[in-house]
């Protein structure tokens, strides 16, 4: 036996859900003290596998060994007892509570009848210092940054005595600087003897922090590689199953007249403070303007104001010179605005409607789809058949419920519907969130195709790579304002990162000339 101990071993794990095999005889071997990546596209079965390890699912076949002895993990509590902790992608924190209160939740130390906050806070402080997490035990969750909240999640697992930490897509919500900090934290954790399993589909991160990587595709283990001996292209082709290009093919943009003009718009956010603080920018015909920024800097409010879902306090928004601010969504859409919404399940689709019905969700009222006061389902179906073919929406039938489609096909359906009306302006908000590489390529091509047809495209995304690859100009949003407009060809990640965190403002650049 070698001196490097295997802490987690999953052998032949098979987990079926109605209609699909999420995990098909998967093997995973994680050595003590390493950072092991679990790489795969969305829907490949990474999360299912980790949920099996964390006791949320029971596998039909296969066995799990922790520290080389077989175990049965039937609940997250048992996983905790075995020293397995999970840092979820969506934080499970109580906003009005303090850091300490959140960490001890469910495991409160008692002093008589009271909760012993002081000693808990001390322990949190110690752990925080030991791993270089820099968390104030008495800060309220609502007051600290997203990066800090993530560290609270990490502390939560450490407080419960975790030796094996599972990170589920931890960088999705972080700025580039915060990502660097997280990488440091991971190295610290490993130095202190912890083992990390990192679930991700981002290849760069794996190259930067991981020791080894297990690739999963369609529920099957493809390979386990040592990171030092591989490269990004090899990982990508193993993940997708074919060669992938990372750059987006596009010609130079030839911007023409201004389509969308946003002038000094202010609007309230959820918390009753201004989310948009006099934001101004323009999008011209034949160009893609990318809006980069960290989540929560007014992107959602901007989209809602532009599409008419939220009222703005002041300013003006025009499409082709016509004022559309604070008009109804239908009025705005008839003026030529189409929108791939941020949250396709909440806004983009009625999941319990058929694909055909979803494809006319915005045009059902037009004469085209009505006959003598009734909906003309023949025309609606013809329309749907045409669009699913044109946009390669893979669905068993046009009568299938939208709910049953994969994320990529749902998104293709939305794009089909939005582009179908031949809009002058297309707003794409997080258009590739949660999609796999193939679908991302498709969607990027469609955005560029719109641009080349002489339409204006506004791309709002948290994915910096996406913004840099697709946009012709990049505007950075910070605290509800555009803090600068840069050229994607000359800027770099560091500059963008600084602007995104409010560290650098470009003077006089707000109009992007």
């Amino acid at each position, binding site marked *: 036996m070698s001196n490097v101990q295997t802490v987690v071993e999953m052998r032949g794990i098979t987990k079926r859900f109605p209609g699909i095999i999420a995990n098909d005889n998967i093997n995973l071997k994680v050595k003590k003290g390493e950072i092991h990546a679990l790489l795969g596209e969305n829907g490949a079965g990474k999360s299912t596998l980790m949920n099996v390890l964390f006791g949320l699912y029971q596998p039909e076949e296969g066995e799990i060994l922790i520290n080389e002895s077989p175990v049965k993990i039937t609940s997250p509590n048992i996983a905790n007892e075995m020293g397995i902790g999970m840092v979820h992608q969506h934080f499970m924190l109580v906003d009005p509570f303090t850091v300490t209160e959140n960490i001890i939740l469910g495991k409160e130390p008692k002093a008589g009848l009271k909760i012993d906050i002081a000693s808990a806070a001390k322990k949190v402080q110690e752990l925080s210092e030991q791993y270089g997490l820099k968390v104030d035990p008495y800060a309220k969750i609502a007051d600290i940054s997203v990066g800090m909240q993530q560290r609270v999640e990490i502390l939560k697992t450490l407080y419960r005595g975790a030796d094996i930490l599972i990170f589920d897509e931890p960088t999705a919500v972080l700025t580039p600087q915060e990502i660097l900090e997280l990488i440091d934290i991971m190295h610290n954790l490993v130095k202190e003897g912890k083992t990390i399993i990192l679930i991700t589909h981002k290849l760069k991160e794996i190259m930067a922090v991981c020791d080894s990587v297990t690739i999963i595709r369609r529920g099957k283990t493809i390979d386990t590689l040592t990171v030092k001996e591989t490269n990004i292209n090899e990982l990508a082709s193993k993940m997708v199953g074919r060669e992938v290009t990372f750059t987006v093919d596009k010609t130079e943009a030839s911007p023409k007249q201004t389509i969308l003009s946003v002038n000094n718009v202010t609007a309230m956010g959820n918390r009753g403070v201004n989310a948009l603080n006099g934001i101004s920018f323009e999008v011209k015909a034949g160009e893609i303007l990318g809006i980069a920024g960290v989540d929560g800097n007014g992107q959602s409010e901007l989209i809602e104001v532009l599409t008419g*879902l939220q009222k703005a306090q002041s300013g003006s928004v025009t499409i082709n010179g016509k004022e559309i601010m604070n008009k109804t969504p239908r009025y705005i859409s008839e003026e030529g605005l189409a929108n791939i*919404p941020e949250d396709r399940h909440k806004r983009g689709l*009625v999941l319990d*409607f058929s694909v055909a019905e979803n494809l006319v969700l915005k045009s059902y*009222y037009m004469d085209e789809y009505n006959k003598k006061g009734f*909906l003309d389902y023949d025309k609606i179906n013809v329309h749907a058949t045409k669009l699913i073919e044109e946009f390669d929406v893979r669905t068993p039938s046009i009568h299938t419920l939208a709910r049953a489609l994969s994320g990529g096909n749902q998104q293709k359906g939305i794009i089909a519907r939005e582009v179908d009306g031949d809009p002058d302006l297309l707003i794409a908000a997080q258009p590739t969130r949660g999609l796999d590489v193939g679908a991302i390529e498709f969607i990027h091509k469609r955005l560029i195709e719109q641009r080349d047809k002489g339409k204006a495209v506004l791309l709002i995304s948290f994915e910096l790579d996406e913004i840099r690859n697709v946009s012709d100009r990049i505007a950075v949003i910070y605290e509800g304002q555009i803090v600068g407009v840069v050229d994607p060809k000359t800027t770099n990640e560091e500059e963008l990162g600084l602007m995104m965190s409010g560290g650098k403002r470009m003077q006089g650049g707000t109009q992007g000339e």
Partner: protein
Amino acid sequence: MNKFVQVFTKDSFLVPVVAIIFGLIVGAFAMLAGGFNPIEAYVALFDKVFGDMYNFGETIRQITPLIFSGLAVAFAFRTGMFNIGVEGQFLMGMVTAVYLGVKLDLPFFLHAPITIVGSMLAGGLWAAFAGWLKAVRGVHEVITTIMLNWTALYLVNFILTTTLVPEGQQRSETIKESAMINIGWLSEMFDSARLHWGTLIALGAAFIFYIVLWKTRTGFELRATGVNPHAAEYAGMNVNKNVVKAMFISGALAGIGGACEILGVFHYQAISAALPGYGFDGIAVALIGGNTPIGVIFGAILFGILTFGAGGMKLGAGVPVELIRVVIASVIFFVAAHGIVRYFLKPILAKKKDKEVL
């Protein structure tokens, strides 16, 4: 469309039937525990309902208002709202029918239709008010409709005492004959059971329910608003308008139901201290029927048979009313909680699926 057909497919037919049997078995145990003979009781139930023409006709009479109130609840539900106020809307329909039935002086071909339309508007507006409060002020419809039930009850009593009830009596005058919707020859066939055109109107309403929701622009909007108001709003639909519209239609169905009870069955309305319960039964019926029009009809039939047949169980087998309620409740429990039934049927359903694939 699918929803409409689904009711007839084998799977959804099997599940409710088994659910009813389960319910009757549990009810049987309840009766056994109480020292009564369940077989005797069930025989008495069916004997009461199907034993003679009069009682069979009266069962149909019992089923009719349940269809209306079930449809009313289901319609609101399809649009994402829980209309607990069908009770009050039904009452508003009833009082309007009595008022117009007594006060108007019209030929028969106008009197009944105008009265029904009046009741429909009364019920619809009563519900639309709750919808409006939700749309404009964001008040949850469960709260407002519950309160409007009581408001309706006392308002109805007030209208009755001040305008329709003769001095010293407890019930209103009888409506004019021109407003009545009884079917004389049919009643004769059923040994003078109170049969009326309302049953046909109820079936028609179920059909219109289907057409409106699944075939029209309005229905498209209402359904979209019901399952995903965020997407509906994003797609340019006026969610608030749809909320009011849906509540109006829901209340209108209840209002017609109220009119038919007056014009076809009672011909007068009594001052009442308590809510009559049509609306609450409607919630159960809608639930049993899975909020589909066909489902509601079957749900109403089941509920009507059980409640009407309950009289027979009491007389024929001596089962006390309280125990009969337990039996009814357990049947409804299993029909509504069809997940449990599905769980027990899993092996059978799975096998069937395999066969169908082959």
